[in-house]
């Protein structure tokens, strides 16, 4: 039983990271109908920003986190402006291939830059952690802090989307872009802020992941991004609530399955994905759109 809770804590920690990244996928998809393959790379950039911030500005968790979120967010906006904006009125799949190109570009640029390079780096210990033991379950203060922080970030996002003017704009654009434009909403502004928020959340996810598994590599972006993307689809892509729950479900399932067998853990994400899509074709919280003639 104690092992069960132990795994549950690990699963929650991984799950909240997936959820943070999945949120970005789902928001971008909801607004511009694009699977942003480069989203995982924003996570990687966030993690590296935190690494360098710790190197130059001291190992301060708050500073590193804010830097990571800002840099990832700004890069997200720039990517959208340069690579995705010209593709808005083009076939959807062409934009997807551009996103693939952007992902390859960011990853290999980081690999080629001399100060990043292909060699894995050790992520600094930003938080001093203490172990706490309750009812035979050991967990660290860092774990609790990260889970709480991730949940706070998600609640913050929920607040932005549901209560602020930008959020109302986002919801309007995701419902009907042309109608929203006619109502006087600045579409490009809304899309940029979506990219900023999504990428910033991914950047935060990168820092959390770095603290959890302190080996930093250029490829963590695509690897984690993939899982998070599946989480977003399981939850119902385009739905914010879905991304949160999808991420947490995927994290917990992955930790439990890996505990049984490493190979099974590798495939469990896809198995869950297939089962859910076959039972609920639009994901857990997604809405099926009916085709109008």
């Amino acid at each position, binding site marked *: 039983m104690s092992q069960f809770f132990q795994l549950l804590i690990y699963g929650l920690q991984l799950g909240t990271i997936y959820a943070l990244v999945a949120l970005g996928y789902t928001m971008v*998809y909801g607004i511009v109908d694009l*699977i942003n*393959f480069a989203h995982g790379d924003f996570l990687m950039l966030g993690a590296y920003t935190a690494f360098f911030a710790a190197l130059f500005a001291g190992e301060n968790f708050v500073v590193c986190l804010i830097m990571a979120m800002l840099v990832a967010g700004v890069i997200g906006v720039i990517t959208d402006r340069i*690579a995705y904006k*010209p*593709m808005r009125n*083009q*076939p959807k*799949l*062409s934009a*997807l*291939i*551009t996103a*693939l*190109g*952007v992902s*390859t*570009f960011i990853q*290999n*640029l980081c*690999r*080629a830059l001399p100060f990043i390079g292909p060699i894995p780096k050790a992520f600094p210990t930003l938080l001093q952690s203490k172990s706490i033991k309750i009812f035979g379950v050991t967990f660290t203060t860092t774990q609790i802090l990260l889970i709480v922080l991730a949940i706070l970030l998600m609640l913050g996002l929920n607040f932005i989307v549901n209560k602020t003017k930008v959020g109302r704009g986002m919801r309007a654009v995701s419902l009907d872009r042309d109608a929203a434009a006619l109502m006087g909403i600045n579409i490009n502004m809304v899309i940029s802020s979506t990219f900023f928020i999504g990428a910033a959340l991914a950047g935060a996810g990168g820092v959390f992941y770095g603290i959890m598994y302190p080996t930093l590599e250029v490829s963590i972006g695509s690897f984690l991004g*993939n899982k998070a*993307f*599946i989480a977003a*689809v399981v939850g119902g*892509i385009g739905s914010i609530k879905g991304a949160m729950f999808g991420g947490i479900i995927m994290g917990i399932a992955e930790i439990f399955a890996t505990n049984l067998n490493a*190979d*099974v853990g*590798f*495939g469990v994400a*896809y*198995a869950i*994905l*297939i089962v859910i*899509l*076959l039972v609920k*074709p*639009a994901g857990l919280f997604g809405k099926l759109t009916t*085709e109008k*003639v």
Partner: protein
Amino acid sequence: MGKTKAVQLQKDKKSYVSYIMIPVLFVVIQILYRTEILNSYWYQILQLACINGIVAMSLNLINGMTGQFSLGQAGFMSVGAYTSAMLTKLVFQSAMGNPFASYGLFFLALLIGAAVAAFIGFLIGIPSLRLKGDYLAIITLGFSEIIRVLWRVFPFSGRAKGLNGIQKLSTFPIIFVAVIIVMILLRNFTKSRYGRGCIAIRENELAAETMGINTTKAKIKSFVFSAFIAGLGGGLYAHLMMFINPEMFSQVKSTDMLLFLYAGGVGSYSSALLGALIFTMLPEFLRFMGEWRLVIYALILIIIMLNRPKGIFGKHEFGFMRFGDKESAHQKADNGGLISSFVERRKAKKLAQAGENNGGAGKQ
């Protein structure tokens, strides 16, 4: 490249030119190789590019012609690769004495591999083709990753280590002939009743259904056929690389194929083939850049997609793939082929010039 250019010049004449060009192209490549102008490294890359072309064309059948966004081609490729490699390595090994027998058995292994891939495609297609758009893409991706996990646990496939010591049976002539056969098969399928049904589904699924096409059946048929050809490509790939492991058939391979198809031009087999040839060779051309080569590669890809969103060659079919059909002016504009759009632009310029001259004459 020489082939397509020559075909383009004679665009509106009979397409038999390409039937002559194919053997000529083959002989030219052979001569270049024998005289060592084309070294064995590039020869190998060329063969790999042709195999990528086969798989990209198979992807075009389902994505470009049927309009169903499938992303799991690497999974079918791996089924073909593993099945045929296990057959030649473990089952047929003892019978492969003389070259005659070994090639015969190789073809048998390729066919069985492709058939097994088609069967897996059938099993996957039935549940997943109910989904549409991005959801279909993701579920096919999921199935292809599941297949990869199965190869990691399947006892005869060498697990995570993979299979090595596969005989090198894929030679350039075999691959070349395979490309041609696959092209003809795909062309004939697309021009047949089933293929036209698939195109109708792509254009408007609801309308196709009201016209009496069994859309589910047609989609499954094209999916299975696509899996068959991808499996064939996988078999050739295994016997070219001489070793395979599950990591070779990861999502990266699937997205590579997608990239070849869409950067070349979706909706056209010849564009898919050319896209695969160009984008397989491009990173090799950029080798001199060292670590920066993939950065430049990605940059080139982004620039191409931003400037030619329909792919380099568009929906245009070259040479004998067109099957004697003439493209109307409207189709030409819609297809957005590289050369035809260039010709269009020149025509428009000439027309504008002529208009100016006429206008000038009127004044005088």
